[in-house]
């Protein structure tokens, strides 16, 4: 067994394989396929104070090497998360649970953080400031750096555990966005979120999604994620969770080499719900076979 333990600042994982918010439900949907207790961390679906019904269907479209979604942060609200979802994860002692909050306003995010501060099953908080599928909040936060600073520092004041901020690559300057986020109190950065995209229905000659825009994910965005991770990792020493179309052990290695400290699986969870566990085994095997350590997976000049 290779040493897979991964430290993301104060957040310690048994291995660097994570599942991305919105692609892994609340974990329990996957227990027929995968042993949750073997995964480094799972990131729960975004939560808001009140229940959100989400966007009008259709919500899914396939595209070469990926998919688009327009779910719209559907969830049953933070009380349901606390009463129903978190207790269901109690038994998994080795698994770290990251709660993802996506309030539509600074105030709502502060309130969510204040409530989750008291939840022992939440090991870290991920602040989603980059969802393209909602009218208020979401990706619009990322375009307003003073708001990003205020939002993160206010959430920082309320939450004492490890704070992750999830960034979008669809901004003019991700390095600047990362800098503001770090200054405001982000301890870990996760990148990237889905890319704003569109689809057209030929028959009706209308935009396929009711909101027009949807979020593109999957291998189609992988090279964009690699570039974003490279840019941020070469400027700051902050731990990075890399996300974007990871679908094989080769992808995991690429993400780790280019600068990610952990790798999060997104769309592929839908296609192969046991992929997280498979990638942990394959990473272990790769390190053993090549007599390498995780620390040695760095970009060579």
């Amino acid at each position, binding site marked *: 067994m290779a040493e897979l333990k991964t430290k993301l600042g104060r957040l310690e994982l048994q291995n660097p394989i994570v599942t991305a918010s919105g*692609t892994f*439900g609340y974990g329990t*949907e996957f227990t*027929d396929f995968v042993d949750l207790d073997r995964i480094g961390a799972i990131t729960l679906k975004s939560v808001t104070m009140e229940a959100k019904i989400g966007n009008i*269907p259709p*919500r899914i479209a396939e595209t070469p090497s990926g998919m688009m979604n327009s*779910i719209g942060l*559907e969830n049953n609200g933070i009380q349901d998360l606390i009463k129903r979802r978190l207790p269901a994860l109690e038994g998994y002692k080795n698994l770290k649970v990251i709660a993802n909050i996506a309030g539509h306003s600074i105030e709502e995010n502060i309130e969510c953080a204040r409530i989750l501060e008291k939840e022992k099953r939440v090991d870290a908080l991920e602040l989603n400031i980059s969802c393209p599928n909602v009218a208020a909040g979401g990706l619009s936060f990322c375009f307003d750096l003073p708001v990003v600073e205020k939002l993160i520092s206010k959430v920082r004041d309320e939450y004492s555990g490890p704070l992750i901020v999830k960034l979008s690559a669809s901004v003019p300057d991700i390095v600047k966005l990362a800098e503001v986020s770090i200054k405001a109190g982000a301890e870990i950065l996760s990148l990237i979120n889905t890319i704003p995209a569109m689809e057209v229905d030929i028959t009706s000659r209308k935009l396929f999604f009711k909101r027009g825009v949807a979020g593109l994910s999957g291998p189609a965005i992988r090279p964009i994620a690699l570039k974003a991770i490279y840019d941020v990792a070469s400027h700051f020493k902050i731990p990075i969770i890399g996300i974007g179309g990871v679908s094989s052990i080769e992808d995991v290695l690429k993400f780790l080499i280019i600068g990610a400290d952990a790798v999060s699986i997104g769309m592929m969870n*839908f296609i192969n*719900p046991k992929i997280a566990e498979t990638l942990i085994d394959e990473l272990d095997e790769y390190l053993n076979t090549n007599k390498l350590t995780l620390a040695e997976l760095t970009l060579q000049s």
Partner: protein
Amino acid sequence: MSDATKIIEISDVIKSKQLAKDTFLLVLNSSHISSMATPGQFVNISIQTKLPSANMLKRPFGVHNCGKNKLEILYKVKGEGTNAMTSLAVGDKVEVMGPLGNRFSICKNKKVLIIGGGMGIAPLYFLYNQLKEHNDIIMIHGVKTSDEVIPWTESHIKTHVDDVEGYFVCENIDKYIKKEKIQHIMACGPIPMMKSIAESAIKAGITAEVSLEARMACGFGACLGCVINTKNGYKKVCTDGPVFNASDIW
């Protein structure tokens, strides 16, 4: 994971055969899913197109029939994914996830109308096989044109061809329910057809179950992509359905 209710299985193609225009029967060997699946449930099948990453998402198909170590899928070519499936040959491997979703109810001692529109017939065939012993069943398969008629070997399936009859299969359903004293309807097909059938059932004061479909990414309740609007808000076709009481929808 022995108590798992759904699994991923690598299946061999036993048979792939065209039955009618754009309509194919795919028979797979399956030890687990075939023993667990119930009528109304579906499976997600991986697609292999020329460009391997072009169609990554698995496609949902209602279970058409199950035998010992055998799983049958009836499908219509609609796009790139199903088109690629037609080139599957005996011995090819396919990744199958299932069984997924809920089932049609188990009814007994009833006069049941089972009605499928187009490919909606797929899961109903399996349903008939399970219900026939304890119920008096009338089964109708509605298709648009003559070249879509499936040459059923079973005499109990009546085929209705819209173009030949001059009206849709659901148009005479009110009279039919009365004449045949139907007590329960089970349907799958295009939304307008099922809506019409549901309205007829409600008018006649009888119950109806419908199986719905939607675009989905996962098939097991994680992506929230396949929601449909019901009287009780959005419900997931994959785990709250695909079978719904018609009165919950219309």
